[in-house]
């Protein structure tokens, strides 16, 4: 008897679930395209300062109503007379489709394209962090409720029921309004009202029930699985069963929920910022940009349209990616509900 050579043994080893999922995802063209869109927008947002300095040649956080720019060799004022017959009042410049003020200016004469990229930083950062935070907390709640069962499950599930009954945007609005003026004081820790941690935590908190329910269902099914029974009979401590047997099997549910929760978080963040209780000025997010554009919607619609299109692109890409991941990982119980 000789040992088999290592290389054929590796070839015959069946691919693991993650490798198979990756393979099936690689054939999903729309999911791949969505991923590419997300990466592109994220990279563009990260490069916002470079865009502002080297392409737009402007500081998008400073009011610039008196300035002028040169477009195609022609000098133009940023605030221009209105189109009405008497030329009464001033409107910000519209899209130039050149490097500076590509998408025009907002009512304070700031470059909309540069602000769009800066806004993308905050919007993407907040939605990503709150999705991760939400999933971590939901996993803790879902695993505790599903694995322990009994009184722990009853208490946690009733708490989720209660949170579920408050309309999710109203819940987020309530939490934002009590913290927006003075921030949050937790003993020695003070989170100022303009800190991005506030919207991150608030959005993560309100979406916990949405993620915790499917996780709990998955854990309850796993608890009765044979391999968990076997581990129990062998006397493996409960915390090790959770870490080694339950958690790896819940990961696929978490991965599928991730993009969907991030999509909902992005919509919630933009709504809060639109209502001026999310990201606080002078910082920008796609929601605050839409609010800036509200007053200019009939004269300079691009100010509000551009950030809206950015939100749609990201949310759509996240939803398609989530669908692709669900098909690839074959997770059925991670159904998501939009609010």
């Amino acid at each position, binding site marked *: 008897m000789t040992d088999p050579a290592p290389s054929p043994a590796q070839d015959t080893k069946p691919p693991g679930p993650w490798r198979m999922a990756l393979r099936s995802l690689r054939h999903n063209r729309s999911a791949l395209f969505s991923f590419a869109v997300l990466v592109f927008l994220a990279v563009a947002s990260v490069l916002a300062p470079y865009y502002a300095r080297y392409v737009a040649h402007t500081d998008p956080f400073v009011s610039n109503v008196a300035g002028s720019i040169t477009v195609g060799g022609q000098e133009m004022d940023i605030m221009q007379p209105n189109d009405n017959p008497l030329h009464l009042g001033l409107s910000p410049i519209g899209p130039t489709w050149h490097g500076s003020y590509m998408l025009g200016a907002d009512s304070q004469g700031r470059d909309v394209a540069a602000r769009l990229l800066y806004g993308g930083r905050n919007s993407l950062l907040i939605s990503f962090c709150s999705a991760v935070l939400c999933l971590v907390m939901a996993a803790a709640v879902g695993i505790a409720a599903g694995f322990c069962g009994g009184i722990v499950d009853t208490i946690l599930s009733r708490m989720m029921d209660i949170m579920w009954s408050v309309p999710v945007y109203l819940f987020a609005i309530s939490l934002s309004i009590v*913290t927006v003026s003075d921030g949050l004081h937790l003993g020695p820790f003070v989170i100022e009202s303009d800190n991005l941690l506030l919207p991150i935590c608030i959005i993560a908190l309100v979406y916990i029930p949405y993620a915790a329910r499917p996780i709990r269902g998955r854990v309850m099914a796993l608890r009765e699985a044979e391999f968990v029974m076997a581990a129990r009979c062998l006397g493996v401590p409960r915390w090790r069963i959770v870490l080694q047997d339950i958690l790896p099997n819940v990961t696929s549910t978490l991965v599928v929920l991730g993009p969907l929760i991030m999509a909902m978080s992005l919509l919630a963040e933009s*709504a809060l910022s639109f209502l001026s209780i999310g990201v606080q000025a002078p910082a920008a997010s796609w929601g605050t940009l839409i609010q800036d554009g509200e007053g200019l*919607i009939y004269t300079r619609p691009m100010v509000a349209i551009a950030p809206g299109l950015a939100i749609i692109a990201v949310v759509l890409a996240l939803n398609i990616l989530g669908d692709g991941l669900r098909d690839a990982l074959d997770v059925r119980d991670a159904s998501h509900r939009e609010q």
Partner: protein
Amino acid sequence: MLMAALRRLGQTVFVLFGISALVFTVFFATPGADPTARIAGKNASPQTMQKVRQEYGFDRPLPVQYAIMMKKLFITQDLASYADRGELVVPEITRAAPVTVSLVCGAAVIWVVLSIAMGTLAAALKGSWIDRTLMMLGLIGISIPVFWLGQVANLITQNRYHDTWLFSWVPALGYVPLTQNPWGWFKALVIPWVVLAVLFIGVYSRVLRADLVALSGEDFIRTARAKGLSPARILIRHGLRTAMVTFVSLFGMDFAQLVGGGALLTEVVFGLPGVGRLTYQALTNLDLPLIMATVMYSAVFVVLANAAVDMIYLLLDPRVRDAR
């Protein structure tokens, strides 16, 4: 059956208590500023502060404060907003409610009809380009922020294309009461209805298609097929009827949440003076009593509506009725 109903009732009471405690905690026990200042509004005088502290019992233990607040909200209904010169909050909400109900009911009609049509058609033509297109449209609908869609709708119907035959009938933003002028009411609300319905058309058509496709593998559908029924009849009489169970329970929840304030963004963009816009105005002048009251009333409404839907299920669905 009676036991099941009683148990459901007990749960409802518990959840109602839980919600009131949760909302109270959010507004008055969140660490941060003094709750007195939150109630009294911006730049309140020391006299007002003192009055508020006495009236709401902020110098007494939390359970007493909770009791005082519940009494002011639900029993005496004399919660007043200090930011708005002592306007009573509860009557303000009841005045605004018909607008919100008008908005949500119309949108609900549109989204139920369209999503059933889209979902059934997509399931019937599973795998075809029509199916893919419809589901993509649904996904796009889910991805659009409603306040942005409302602004774009305003841009098109109020400004850019308002002078063409297509949108010349659209009235200026605002609300017309149904009792005054039914036709004006309809015209003022058509665009907001469509905008509010878009998200739900997307969600419901996708859920319905998934349910119908999942059902097509079930035994009773196979039996119907073996009996020689036509595919259309199987899909509509057997499949759709069963899929409606999920659909209706989803609908109950979303409808209640929208009436309870979920339509806030639509109301703000279209200038409809409903409960949501009331909440928004309270946001802008930091009128905490009003916001708390709308949140509390809407949560209570959602819980009661869900309980009512469950009770109707108990009566209608033999599987639920006999299972407990």
